[in-house]
Protein backbone atom coordinates (compact mmCIF):
# COMPACT_ATOMS: atom_id res chain seq x y z
CA UNK A 1 0.00 0.00 0.00
CA UNK A 2 1.29 3.43 -0.96
CA UNK A 3 0.08 6.92 -0.19
CA UNK A 4 -1.52 9.19 -2.76
CA UNK A 5 -2.33 12.84 -2.35
CA UNK A 6 -5.68 14.06 -3.63
CA UNK A 7 -5.70 17.72 -4.61
CA UNK A 8 -9.20 19.14 -4.83
CA UNK A 9 -9.70 21.99 -7.30
CA UNK A 10 -12.72 24.01 -8.30
CA UNK A 11 -13.65 27.17 -10.16
CA UNK A 12 -14.19 29.64 -7.34
CA UNK A 13 -16.62 31.63 -9.49
CA UNK A 14 -18.78 28.66 -10.29
CA UNK A 15 -19.26 27.55 -6.70
CA UNK A 16 -22.94 27.69 -5.81
CA UNK A 17 -23.60 29.80 -2.74
CA UNK A 18 -26.18 27.38 -1.48
CA UNK A 19 -28.95 27.58 1.05
CA UNK A 20 -28.32 26.00 4.47
CA UNK A 21 -30.09 22.86 3.27
CA UNK A 22 -27.90 22.65 0.17
CA UNK A 23 -24.76 23.16 2.21
CA UNK A 24 -25.87 20.49 4.65
CA UNK A 25 -26.59 18.13 1.76
CA UNK A 26 -23.11 18.84 0.41
CA UNK A 27 -21.57 18.13 3.81
CA UNK A 28 -23.42 14.82 3.97
CA UNK A 29 -22.23 13.87 0.47
CA UNK A 30 -18.68 14.73 1.46
CA UNK A 31 -18.75 12.79 4.74
CA UNK A 32 -20.43 9.80 3.07
CA UNK A 33 -17.77 9.82 0.33
CA UNK A 34 -14.77 10.13 2.61
CA UNK A 35 -16.39 7.80 5.15
CA UNK A 36 -16.67 5.27 2.35
CA UNK A 37 -12.93 5.46 1.72
CA UNK A 38 -12.28 5.14 5.46
CA UNK A 39 -14.59 2.11 5.59
CA UNK A 40 -12.32 0.39 3.06
CA UNK A 41 -9.39 1.18 5.35
CA UNK A 42 -7.88 3.26 2.55
CA UNK A 43 -7.84 6.68 4.19
CA UNK A 44 -4.49 7.84 5.51
CA UNK A 45 -5.37 11.43 6.36
CA UNK A 46 -8.72 13.15 5.95
CA UNK A 47 -6.74 16.27 5.13
CA UNK A 48 -7.89 19.86 5.26
CA UNK A 49 -9.76 22.50 3.38
CA UNK A 50 -7.78 25.55 2.36
CA UNK A 51 -9.06 29.04 3.06
CA UNK A 52 -9.87 31.37 0.18
CA UNK A 53 -7.05 33.73 1.09
CA UNK A 54 -3.35 33.28 0.58
CA UNK A 55 -0.16 34.60 -0.93
CA UNK A 56 2.21 33.58 -3.67
CA UNK A 57 5.95 33.89 -3.06
CA UNK A 58 7.96 34.24 -6.26
CA UNK A 59 11.67 34.49 -7.00
CA UNK A 60 13.36 37.66 -5.82
CA UNK A 61 11.00 38.01 -2.88
CA UNK A 62 8.09 39.08 -5.04
CA UNK A 63 4.91 38.50 -3.03
CA UNK A 64 1.48 38.47 -4.60
CA UNK A 65 -1.58 38.76 -2.47
CA UNK A 66 -4.62 36.59 -2.58
CA UNK A 67 -7.58 36.28 -2.50
CA UNK A 68 -7.91 33.87 -5.35
CA UNK A 69 -11.52 34.42 -6.20
CA UNK A 70 -10.74 34.86 -9.88
CA UNK A 71 -8.77 31.66 -10.17
CA UNK A 72 -10.39 29.04 -12.35
CA UNK A 73 -8.60 26.11 -10.79
CA UNK A 74 -8.35 27.04 -7.16
CA UNK A 75 -6.87 24.46 -4.83
CA UNK A 76 -9.58 23.98 -2.26
CA UNK A 77 -8.22 21.18 -0.12
CA UNK A 78 -6.40 17.90 0.04
CA UNK A 79 -6.70 14.40 1.45
CA UNK A 80 -4.34 11.44 1.55
CA UNK A 81 -5.50 7.94 0.61
CA UNK A 82 -3.68 4.65 0.36
CA UNK A 83 -3.89 2.11 -2.43
CA UNK A 84 -1.77 -0.47 -4.20
CA UNK A 85 -1.63 1.49 -7.45
CA UNK A 86 -2.36 4.84 -9.04
CA UNK A 87 -5.31 3.28 -10.84
CA UNK A 88 -6.80 1.98 -7.60
CA UNK A 89 -6.31 5.36 -5.96
CA UNK A 90 -8.01 7.07 -8.91
CA UNK A 91 -11.02 4.75 -8.56
CA UNK A 92 -11.50 5.98 -4.99
CA UNK A 93 -12.18 9.45 -6.37
CA UNK A 94 -15.47 8.46 -8.00
CA UNK A 95 -18.37 9.81 -6.02
CA UNK A 96 -16.38 12.81 -4.77
CA UNK A 97 -18.92 15.63 -4.48
CA UNK A 98 -16.52 18.24 -5.89
CA UNK A 99 -16.91 16.59 -9.28
CA UNK A 100 -20.64 17.30 -9.34
CA UNK A 101 -19.98 21.04 -9.12
CA UNK A 102 -17.51 20.97 -11.98
CA UNK A 103 -14.41 20.59 -9.87
CA UNK A 104 -11.53 18.19 -10.33
CA UNK A 105 -9.36 15.93 -8.25
CA UNK A 106 -5.67 15.45 -8.98
CA UNK A 107 -4.21 12.16 -7.77
CA UNK A 108 -0.46 12.16 -7.12
CA UNK A 109 1.68 9.38 -5.70
CA UNK A 110 3.84 10.70 -2.87
CA UNK A 111 7.40 9.78 -2.15
CA UNK A 112 8.29 8.58 1.31
CA UNK A 113 10.61 11.18 2.79
Amino acid at each position, binding site marked *: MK*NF*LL*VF*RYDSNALPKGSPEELQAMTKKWMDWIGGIAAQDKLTDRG*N*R*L*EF*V*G*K*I*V*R*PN*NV*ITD*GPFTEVK*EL*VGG*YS*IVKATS*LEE*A*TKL*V*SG*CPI*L*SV*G*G*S*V*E*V*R*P*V*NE*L
Partner: protein
Amino acid sequence: MEKFIFLFRGSDVYQPGQSPEALQALKEKMIHWLSDLTKNGVHVASEPFQPTGKQVSGTKTTVTDGPFGEAKEIVGGCTIVQAKDINEAVEIAKGCPILATNANVEVRPLQKM
Protein backbone atom coordinates in the same frame (compact mmCIF):
# COMPACT_ATOMS: atom_id res chain seq x y z
CA MET B 1 -0.22 29.11 16.08
CA GLU B 2 -1.98 28.30 12.86
CA LYS B 3 -1.29 25.92 10.05
CA PHE B 4 -0.38 26.91 6.50
CA ILE B 5 0.23 24.80 3.46
CA PHE B 6 2.97 25.59 0.92
CA LEU B 7 2.13 24.41 -2.61
CA PHE B 8 5.36 24.22 -4.59
CA ARG B 9 4.43 25.26 -8.11
CA GLY B 10 6.52 24.74 -11.23
CA SER B 11 10.26 24.50 -11.37
CA ASP B 12 12.29 24.47 -14.51
CA VAL B 13 14.60 21.94 -12.88
CA TYR B 14 11.80 19.37 -13.12
CA GLN B 15 11.27 19.95 -16.85
CA PRO B 16 12.27 17.25 -19.31
CA GLY B 17 15.77 17.82 -20.65
CA GLN B 18 17.17 19.21 -17.45
CA SER B 19 20.21 17.54 -16.00
CA PRO B 20 19.82 14.86 -13.33
CA GLU B 21 22.58 16.64 -11.39
CA ALA B 22 20.54 19.82 -11.15
CA LEU B 23 17.53 17.83 -10.00
CA GLN B 24 19.54 16.01 -7.38
CA ALA B 25 21.12 19.25 -6.15
CA LEU B 26 17.68 20.83 -5.73
CA LYS B 27 16.38 17.79 -3.87
CA GLU B 28 19.27 17.99 -1.45
CA LYS B 29 18.69 21.69 -0.88
CA MET B 30 14.99 21.00 -0.20
CA ILE B 31 15.79 18.27 2.31
CA HIS B 32 18.23 20.59 4.02
CA TRP B 33 15.65 23.40 4.12
CA LEU B 34 12.96 21.09 5.47
CA SER B 35 15.20 19.77 8.22
CA ASP B 36 15.94 23.36 9.23
CA LEU B 37 12.20 23.95 9.46
CA THR B 38 11.95 20.87 11.63
CA LYS B 39 14.74 22.06 13.90
CA ASN B 40 12.96 25.38 14.30
CA GLY B 41 9.77 23.58 15.29
CA VAL B 42 7.67 24.95 12.42
CA HIS B 43 7.50 21.86 10.21
CA VAL B 44 4.27 19.84 10.46
CA ALA B 45 4.29 17.56 7.41
CA SER B 46 5.69 17.27 3.90
CA GLU B 47 4.62 15.28 0.88
CA PRO B 48 6.89 15.36 -2.18
CA PHE B 49 5.01 14.21 -5.27
CA GLN B 50 6.18 11.81 -7.90
CA PRO B 51 6.11 13.29 -11.37
CA THR B 52 3.18 11.07 -12.44
CA GLY B 53 -0.48 11.29 -11.61
CA LYS B 54 -4.05 11.38 -12.84
CA GLN B 55 -6.73 13.98 -12.98
CA VAL B 56 -10.41 13.21 -12.50
CA SER B 57 -12.73 16.02 -13.53
CA GLY B 58 -16.26 17.07 -14.05
CA THR B 59 -19.61 15.45 -13.69
CA LYS B 60 -18.61 12.85 -16.27
CA THR B 61 -15.58 11.91 -14.12
CA THR B 62 -13.21 12.09 -17.05
CA VAL B 63 -9.81 10.68 -16.19
CA THR B 64 -6.73 12.13 -17.82
CA ASP B 65 -3.07 11.51 -17.15
CA GLY B 66 -1.51 14.01 -14.84
CA PRO B 67 0.18 15.86 -13.50
CA PHE B 68 -2.09 18.77 -13.98
CA GLY B 69 -1.61 22.25 -15.31
CA GLU B 70 0.86 24.31 -17.29
CA ALA B 71 4.51 23.67 -16.59
CA LYS B 72 4.87 26.62 -14.26
CA GLU B 73 1.72 25.66 -12.34
CA ILE B 74 2.42 21.99 -11.78
CA VAL B 75 2.43 21.17 -8.08
CA GLY B 76 5.60 19.26 -7.22
CA GLY B 77 4.84 18.76 -3.57
CA CYS B 78 3.54 20.43 -0.47
CA THR B 79 4.65 21.20 3.05
CA ILE B 80 2.55 22.14 6.06
CA VAL B 81 4.05 24.51 8.61
CA GLN B 82 2.82 26.27 11.68
CA ALA B 83 3.19 30.00 12.10
CA LYS B 84 1.67 32.91 13.99
CA ASP B 85 0.00 34.37 10.91
CA ILE B 86 0.26 34.36 7.13
CA ASN B 87 3.00 36.97 7.08
CA GLU B 88 5.19 34.82 9.24
CA ALA B 89 4.41 31.84 6.97
CA VAL B 90 5.41 33.92 3.94
CA GLU B 91 8.73 34.77 5.59
CA ILE B 92 9.38 31.05 6.07
CA ALA B 93 8.43 30.37 2.43
CA LYS B 94 10.96 32.91 1.18
CA GLY B 95 13.71 30.50 2.22
CA CYS B 96 12.47 27.75 -0.11
CA PRO B 97 15.23 26.62 -2.52
CA ILE B 98 12.89 26.21 -5.50
CA LEU B 99 12.59 30.00 -5.72
CA ALA B 100 16.09 30.05 -7.20
CA THR B 101 14.55 28.43 -10.26
CA ASN B 102 11.49 29.64 -12.11
CA ALA B 103 9.06 28.44 -9.45
CA ASN B 104 6.75 29.86 -6.86
CA VAL B 105 5.27 28.90 -3.53
CA GLU B 106 1.56 29.31 -2.91
CA VAL B 107 0.85 29.92 0.76
CA ARG B 108 -2.65 29.09 1.99
CA PRO B 109 -4.07 28.94 5.49
CA LEU B 110 -5.66 25.64 6.47
CA GLN B 111 -9.21 25.81 7.72
CA LYS B 112 -9.65 25.02 11.36
CA MET B 113 -11.69 21.87 11.74
